Each structure stands twice: as structure tokens, then as C-alpha cells.
């Protein structure tokens, strides 16, 4: 799952990136409105965390531009202003949720996870497919109730496939959603992660459609 954090305060952006990355999310940071809009338009993010008080181009303008350009990525706005008018402006312009500064990091990551889940059309935080369960809140994966030890890349691949269960996901799409913007994207490594997941979680969890990609069928 790829997240864009548009926040001009480098320390706060770093904290956000650290927290969300530690939860298995792939995080890019934009430090101004122009960069945020460019990345939002060119990269397939699952959630954009958008501060309204960005330099160069304010967050509200970025939000409006993204929405008017047909971008329907889930957007969480961050505002330091007290005014409800700011929040309503943002929500009215198409933001999905808001958070006011100062906020608890746990609250922010819960909101982000909930937004990803809603996008996947799922109301509960736990995915289940046969004996395998995946708790999006803790990134805990269990097989028959036994916790499994997965690397962050493996969790990233599994999480994206669960959130898009029932849909065929190409290697390219997977790599776009688990690697950072300027990271080294090698789609061959995706096959390596999928193989490891099969070994750990059972071979019938992820199906391969030869030459096209992967799918987790009928997860609940």
C-alpha cells in the first residue's frame, strides 16, 4: 500500500513516514503543494495524507486539482487551523476524512488503514481466506491461529493482494504499490516475495495467472 504524505514540516513528515513505514506501508513524502500534486497525478497512491498549509500551492488547491483531474485516491486532510470552515472546505472539495493538528500518531494510522479498507469495500479490519487471517491493524498474519513471521515486503505484497482480493493484480501494479517513488523497482523480486508467502502461508492462498499476475480469490 503506497501512501503519499504531503507535509512541509520535515520533522513531522519524517515522523509520519517512520510510523507508517513501520506498519508495512510504503511512504513517499512531498514537501510542497506542487510536488504533492505532481506525485498524486503520476503515482498510484492508495491514500494521500495532505496538509492544507503547504507552500507553493496550498493543500486545498492541490485537492481540488487532483479531484478535477479525475483522481479518486482516498485523501486525508491535515489542518493546523482551528476553523471548521477549513475542514469543511476540504471535505466539500472531495477529501475523505480530516485530522486536526496536533494529533495522535495512532489515530492517524488508524484513519489511514480505515481509508484503505473502505476503498477495498471492507468494513472489518481482518481479512480471512481459508486458514489464513490478516489483521490490518497489527499486520499480524496467522495460519490456523498460529502467528507467522513475515518481512515488511512480504506483508506489503500480502496486504495489497488482500485489499484487492478477487481482482487480478499485475506484477507491475504490485511493484508500484509496494516500492517508494525513487526506490529500486524490480518486478522480478515480486515473484520472490510471492514464493516466500506461498511457502509460509500455503500454496493455494495466492494464485498465479501466468504472464498476467496474481490474485487472492474470495477472501472475506
Amino acid at each position, binding site marked *: 500500500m503506497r501512501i503519499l504524505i504531503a507535509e512541509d*514540516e520535515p*520533522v*513531522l513528515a519524517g*515522523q509520519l513516514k517512520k*510510523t507508517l513505514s513501520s506498519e508495512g506501508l510504503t511512504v513517499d513524502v512531498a514537501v510542497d503543494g506542487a510536488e504533492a500534486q505532481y506525485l498524486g497525478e503520476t503515482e498510484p497512491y492508495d491514500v494521500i495524507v495532505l496538509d492544507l*498549509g503547504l507552500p507553493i500551492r496550498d493543500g486545498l488547491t492541490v485537492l481540488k486539482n487532483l479531484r478535477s483531474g479525475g483522481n479518486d485516491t482516498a485523501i486525508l486532510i491535515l489542518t*493546523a*487551523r*482551528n*476553523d*471548521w*470552515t477549513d*475542514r*469543511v*472546505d476540504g*471535505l*466539500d472539495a472531495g*477529501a*475523505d*476524512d*480530516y485530522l*486536526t*493538528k*496536533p*494529533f*495522535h*500518531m*495512532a*489515530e492517524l494510522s488508524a484513519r489511514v488503514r*480505515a*481509508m484503505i479498507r*473502505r476503498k477495498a469495500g471492507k*468494513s472489518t479490519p481482518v481479512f480471512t481466506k481459508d486458514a489464513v487471517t490478516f489483521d490490518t491493524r497489527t499486520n499480524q498474519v496467522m495460519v490456523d491461529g498460529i502467528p507467522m513471521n513475515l518481512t515488511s515486503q512480504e506483508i506489503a505484497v500480502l496486504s495489497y493482494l488482500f485489499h484487492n482480493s478477487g481482482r487480478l493484480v499485475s506484477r507491475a501494479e504490485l511493484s508500484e504499490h509496494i516500492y517508494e517513488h525513487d526506490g529500486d523497482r524490480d518486478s522480478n523480486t515480486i515473484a520472490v516475495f510471492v514464493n516466500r508467502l506461498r511457502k509460509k502461508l500455503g500454496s493455494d492462498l495466492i494464485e498465479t495467472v501466468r504472464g498476467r499476475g496474481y490474485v487472492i480469490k474470495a477472501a472475506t
Partner: protein
Amino acid sequence: MTSLRARAVTGGILWAVAIIVLGLAGLSSYLTSQTQARFVEVLETRHAQAVVAVSNNSSSTQDLVRAIGDLAYQVPNSGQYWQVESDEGAIFASPSLVEARLPRPRSQNQGFIRREIAGPGEQGLLAISQWVTVKDGSMWHVQVASSLESFEEEQVILRNTLLTAFAFVSFVGVLGALTQVAVVLQPLNKLRQDVSGRWEQEDGLEVESYPIEVAPLVNDINTLMERNRDIMRRSRRQAADLAHAIKTPSAIMRNELENLDLGGAEVQEAIDALDRLDAQLKRSFARMRADGTDATVGVATDVDTSLGRMQRAFTALARNEGKSFSAAYEQNLRVRMDQSDFEEVMGNLLDNAMKWSASEVRLEASEAADGKIKITIADDGPGIPKEEITKATQSGQRLDTSMPGTGLGLAIAHDLVHAYGGKILLSKDEKLGGLAIHMRLPFASAKRAD
């Protein structure tokens, strides 16, 4: 300072009284002298008639009575008398004198003597007398007198007529003065009404619709209103900028402290202190906002536009939480509140309702019978017990600490609504069973068509 109307009316009345008194005195004096002259003229004619009669018939009273034939001389005490005396002491008098006689002037002046004397029955008389010498060389003192009673009666009638006429003129004059004052002051009255009316609106006053004497004042009022709005906008922006500048570092500190906390460091006191700092900031900004509304002029908000925005925003938020939000409001309502203040009130209350509701929040807005804007927000949450209701609107009083938040939302809304002269009441909602918040907000008149 005395009102312009009182000054104009008092000034007009004093001026009118002075003119009327002077006019009355002048006219009265002129007409009195005219009447007096005419009276004397008539008396002189009578005297001349008597002199002619004496010249021709100085032998006996009968002859003289016949010669001076006026009937008024025949009627006893009629007020018209003559009396002729020879130099030898013989006295002839008109029958109207009966037994009485007119006194002869002490002066031996041979000329014309005019004087006031007392006649029969203490009648006041004006008498003219003269010594005349007839053809036979004898001298006669010829005296005629006329009662002043008729003269005085005429004077009274004249005075009454004049007073009546002037009273009528005064009445018309005062009415005229009042009308004139009303006409002259009409633009000022219009200005007063416009100012109190437009105070509620965003538009300035139209300078062209006032006389040039008032136009500079109208301009000044427009400038003042605009400046007032500017001050408010500027101070709001400064407060918002300050909040912005403080909150991001506060968020950074909070995250660092929470990380330290997770790592087992003793930072709970620091986290508590930061919580207090954040709550205090929020409260102070809310207070600044509520206090700032005292100086707010010329603001109004389209309720349907604003609630439309709130509806779209809260429908999205309700969807996130799997709850339902519905809003029903009349069109063309306008509330006399700044839009951001109105949205602050609605945002805080709807946010609370959303947080506490089990599954449903409803919003209704309509115009009440007394012209106020009536807004109700109801939810199906646990509500607030009666005894806790007062506490709920007090700043920072959190009734239930199990939910996140500063407990300021309701207090902020309460303070803002009161600052605008509105009312806010809490009760149990009959339909949904949760809390119902009823507000009455000041109505703003319709925006000008231009």
C-alpha cells in the same frame, strides 16, 4: 446633545413667536391709531355742525336742537352730546344730556381743545370744545362729546379679530415648521434606518442616495464599517496563523513523547503538560473568536449555502463511520453571523453528535415564528442527563472521558451563539432518543438585489 429635530422645531417656534408678537403689536398699534383718528374726525365733523348751527340759531335751545338734527342727541344718555354756552352764562344743551352738563375746560384758550371728560353716569367721553364768535359779535363756547364706550368696544373687537387671525397663522406656521423639519431631516432618518439595517449586511451605504450635506458622513460610515470588518478579518487571520505556527511543533513533540513512552521512558507528565497546552490553546483561540464577534458588523451568512457544505462534509464523515446523516433546511434563510463562526458552531455540534450517535444524526433548520433562525441537531446517542446539561456547556468540562476530544466543542458553540445574541438549549430528542440541541440564531434581512 439636543436632537436636531428639537433644535429645529424650538428654533422655528421661537422665531415664529417673535415675528407674531412684533406683528401683532405693530398691526394693533396702527389699527388703533387709525380707529382713533376716525373717531376724532367724526367728532370734529359733529363739532363743525354745532358751530354752524350756533352761528345761525343762537337764540334758543329749541332752535339749536332743531338745527343740530341728529337723532342721537335726542335720546337721553345716548353717548352723543353737545353743549353751547354764551359768554353771558346762558347754557344750551342737547336733550341727551337731560339735566347733566358738560364741564367747561379750565383753560381760556380760544382755540380747539380736545380732552377726555366724565359725562352723565360717569360715562367716559371725548370732548371737543372751542370759543366761536358769531356774526352779531357775541362769543359762544361750543362743545361736543362722544362716549368712548363704542371706541373701546371697537378696539376689543379689533384686538380679538387680530388675535384669532394670528393664532391661525401661528398654528399654520408651526405645522409648516414641523413639516419642513421632517422633510429636511428625512435623509438623516433614512441614514439611521439604513445604518441599522445595513449593519447586518455586507454592503455599504449608497452615497448617491443622500443629499450632498450628508454624503461625507455616509462615506465615513462606510469607511468605518469596512475598517471594522478589516480589523476583525486581520485579527482572525493572525490568530489562525498563530495556531498554525504552534500546532505543528506541538504535533512533533507529541509524536516524540509517544515514541519515548513506547520505549519505556517516563514521559507521562510531559504528555499531560502538552495535553494541557493544546487544550489551553484551543480554548484561548475559541475565546478570542467569541470576543471578536462583539465588534462584528455587516455580516450575514446564507444558511442554505453553508449548511449545504456542512451536509456534504458530514455525509462523507458519516459514511466513514457507517452512520447516517440527514439535513433538512428551508431555502433563502440568512443568519446574522459571520460564515466561519456559523460553520464553527455547526461543525463543533455536528462533530459531537456524530461522535456520540449510535447510527444517526439529523439536522433541521427553519424560520421560527418570531423571525429567528431555528436549528436543531439531534442524534440517537446516549444523550446528556438533565443534571449534567449546564455543566456540558461550560468550557473544558468533559462529561465522559472515554471519548477522544477536549470537551470544548459544545462550550465553543455555546459561547459563539451567545456572542451573536442567539440561544442554545439542550434536551432529549423525542424521536431519536439521544441529545437534541436547539438553537435560535439572529435573522439577517435579505441581501440587496444589486
